[in-house]
């Protein structure tokens, strides 16, 4: 592993910001730390940079211990050979664009001509060659972020840290910068750790995504598996799934060796789902049923091929079809988002436009393979 974090801990007074985190990043890879604000992701990044001192644990970058609590090792930020891009850009207002970008070379004592050459090359790469003599604050937010990026890359650091770099940009610019960053990374092949609360950024830029909550890693893996199969209720909720509390009714073995569980969400309203927890729930135990909005089928009555009476009785596990009422409908462009109520339980659903309005009677379809069931005791919430 190129970057290795071992059992890192950091508290601020009463608050445990990082609670025993261990993880690794391979050379040339990007790790995304994804999570809501206050989950500890930025603290890990700042510990990596040497801007915070962890209370315990060790950090190794490129085979060198930069922090080791037990051994008393704690390198200064400037000794760690890193690059960093902050959310606030942190572009120095009293310097020109070229002075900002050339700073890491200047403080390293790189000869002037050489520094100018390298600065020009990086500025060219981020598309700011023509702005190099401008005062940094004369640039727009997106351009300032490019300056920050160029500054973080110019000295070819061993590791580049990104602290929510796109959060201050508007949505369109963010999408654009994301693509640019992906291209730059492809070209330069730097190792990076990318902190964000935006799942799209995390999934599109990283080889590995770690979802964090309360200072711990909830789940870590490649973007596809993290997305497709949330490992915990927290991850499911963070990724935007419907999460409903219910009781386990019965279970049935699945063909792939897993377990189907029937969950009662309300009187006379139960769905089948796939068990996501390690141990099966006892009958009547509290469970959480998680469904992806895109997988909740919403149709005009009669359009669906299933018959509610037949699906309720169907056994073993089968898709369930209910009658519901749309409470709200919003047009998103290629899709429409609905909130539908079934027997007092509400589901969010995203479907290709069906032309439905609020207050319409609809059928709601939920298939067992689209519903993940977690035993509630396991849920750290």
């Amino acid at each position, binding site marked *: 592993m190129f970057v290795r974090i071992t059992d890192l801990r950091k508290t601020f007074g009463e608050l445990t910001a990082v609670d025993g985190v261990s993880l690794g990043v391979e050379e040339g890879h990007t790790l995304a730390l994804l999570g809501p604000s206050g989950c500890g992701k930025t603290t890990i990044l700042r510990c990596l940079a040497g801007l915070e001192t962890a209370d315990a644990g060790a950090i190794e970058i490129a085979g060198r211990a930069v922090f080791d609590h037990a051994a008393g090792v704690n390198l200064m930020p400037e000794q760690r050979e890193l690059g960093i891009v*902050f959310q606030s850009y942190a572009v120095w207002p009293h310097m020109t664009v070229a002075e900002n970008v050339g700073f890491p070379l200047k403080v390293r004592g790189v000869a002037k001509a050489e520094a100018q050459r390298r600065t020009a090359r990086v500025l060219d790469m981020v598309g700011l060659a023509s702005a190099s003599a401008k005062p940094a604050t004369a640039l727009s937010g997106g351009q300032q972020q490019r300056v920050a990026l160029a500054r973080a890359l110019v000295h070819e650091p061993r590791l580049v840290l990104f602290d929510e770099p796109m959060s201050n940009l508007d949505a369109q610019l963010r999408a654009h910068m994301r693509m640019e960053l992906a291209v730059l990374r492809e070209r330069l092949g730097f190792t990076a750790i990318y902190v964000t609360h935006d799942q799209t950024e995390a999934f599109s830029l990283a080889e590995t995504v770690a979802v964090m909550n309360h200072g711990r890693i909830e789940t870590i893996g490649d973007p596809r598996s993290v997305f497709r199969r949330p490992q915990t209720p927290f991850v499911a909720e963070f990724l935007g799934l419907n999460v409903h509390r219910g009781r386990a009714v019965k279970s049935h073995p699945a063909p792939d060796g897993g377990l189907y569980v029937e969950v009662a969400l309300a009187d006379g309203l139960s769905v089948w789902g796939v068990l996501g927890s390690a141990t099966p729930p006892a009958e009547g135990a509290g469970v959480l049923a998680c469904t992806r909005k895109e997988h909740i089928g919403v149709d005009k009555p009669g359009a669906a091929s299933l018959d509610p009476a037949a699906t309720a009785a169907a056994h073993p596990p089968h898709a369930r079809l209910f009658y519901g009422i749309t409470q709200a409908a919003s047009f998103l462009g290629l899709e429409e988002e609905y909130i539908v109520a079934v027997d007092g339980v509400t589901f969010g659903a995203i479907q290709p436009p069906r032309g439905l309005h609020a207050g319409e009677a609809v059928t709601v379809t939920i298939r067992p393979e689209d519903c993940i069931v977690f035993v509630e005791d396991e849920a750290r919430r």
Partner: protein
Amino acid sequence: MTLATSSASEVTDIAAPARRGSRFAEIALPAAGVFIGMALILGPFLATVIRSVLWWDAAGAALSMKNFAGLFSDPRFYQAAGNTILCGVGATFISCVLGLSLAWVVSRTDMPGRRWFEVFNLVPFFLSPYVGAISWIYLAAPHSGIVSRLLHDTFGLPGDLIPIYSIGGAIWVLSLFYTPYVYLFVIAPMRQMDPALEDAARVHGAGFWTTLRLVTLPLLAPALMSAALIVFVTSAGLFDVPLALASPHGIRTMPTEIFQLVQYPSDLGRAASFGVVVMVFTILVTVLQRRYIDRRRFETVTGKGYRPRTIALRPGARAAALALEAVYIGCGVVLPVIALLMVSLSSIWTGKVTAATLTLRNFEYVAFNYRLTQQAVMNSLFLALVGATLGVGISVLQAYYVNRGTRKRRGLVDAILSLPLGIPGIILGLGFLILAIRTPLYSTLAIILIAYIARFFPFATRTVSAMLLAINPELEQSARASGATWLQTMRYVLLPLLMPAIVAAWLMLFVIFIRELGATILLYAQGTETISVALVVLSERSSGYVAALAVIQLMLLLIAFSLFRATRTSLLQA
């Protein structure tokens, strides 16, 4: 629908006269505030300019440059100007170093007790520089000073080791007094600066000192330059300290020289020409500084709530930080107060307190038996209470004029209204003296009151303006849209929101007026002495009385200071 419309118009009809009155007030009141301010500034300014080019001889008055010619051919002018600039530059330099260091250790390190020091560092801001100079005489005067005696008796050092009666002594006392100005100017940007600006430098390879040199200090430069200018013009123009520390040894400075020119046999013409030179110089310096700031103004505050990163000091650095605080608070507050108390409690002052000389007689005399001091306390209280109230009143109107609405020439108005910030009090006092000298106003408390307000209302206007800028005008617009008249909007929305700034400005003016000397010294007459004037008068008689009266003044100032703390308003808004 018809019904609703007619009843609405009925309401409008009833309220119409009130609305018309309010519309008049909306235009007239802020304009009146500005007009009064302009008159207060331009009156003495023009009087000084005109007087400087008038020459009286047997044939009567005539326009002439003889005053200036006389001034420029007098070597004393050059001595005074040189010494004054030396005083200003020295005090500015030391204040900047002290103020920056104190602000940094308080706001950016984990120095123990920094919450307390944060408050204590401001105390000298509230004390009287004249009393500070007197206390330092008690401490360091050759042979009789407390410290001088200690050094002599304990270490056998010469008794006149500390040259307190010198330009150096004046610089030292001025620096102690003006350090909080720098401290206040730089601590806000230091605190609110995006820590990522420094973090980025560290991560990209700059060490602590390199970051300080290449990033932190340049980012603080605009705030530091503003502070340096204010400290330079005000410390150089201060009459109090040179009067106590330079005059006794015949060292000439600008303020004491102007004071001398007004004394019998007075030469008002030459004093006025000296005043014009000072005013032109001050305005030039201010304009140059504005140019510099405008070129280098940049946003280091992104409006996000940052938790400033505190630096963990190593034991050696922590000791150094605490020593710095101890020296500043010790020299600026503790030692002077101890000296004052010791002198005020002694029947004869010999440089040490003994049981035989311990007495409360000085306080008894000053408070109960002496007409001059009793009158002085009453006068000072009157001037401070009435002056602060009137000053804050016009400052609110001016702040509104400058920050709200679409009045033309706001920039020019603001520039003119800020002029007195740099004009020394004694120069403004001279202007009012020239204006009032042959009128019934001369030798009244009223002329002193007017001079005080004219010299110091810009401080209040600044404070109120800063807060007004931070109040979203939509709050007032909502009130107007809800049907409130302008007067109602002021009363129910804007003034309550501005109250913290109004209270802060009032207390600031109160403190300034209680201790003011420069603007008073040319305008007082028998019966209109203030506390500070009484201190000067008494200083030729008994140090015990002086110290006792100074302690009384100190109490008044400390009461204002604790009120300031109690209202929890921040001086940083100024």
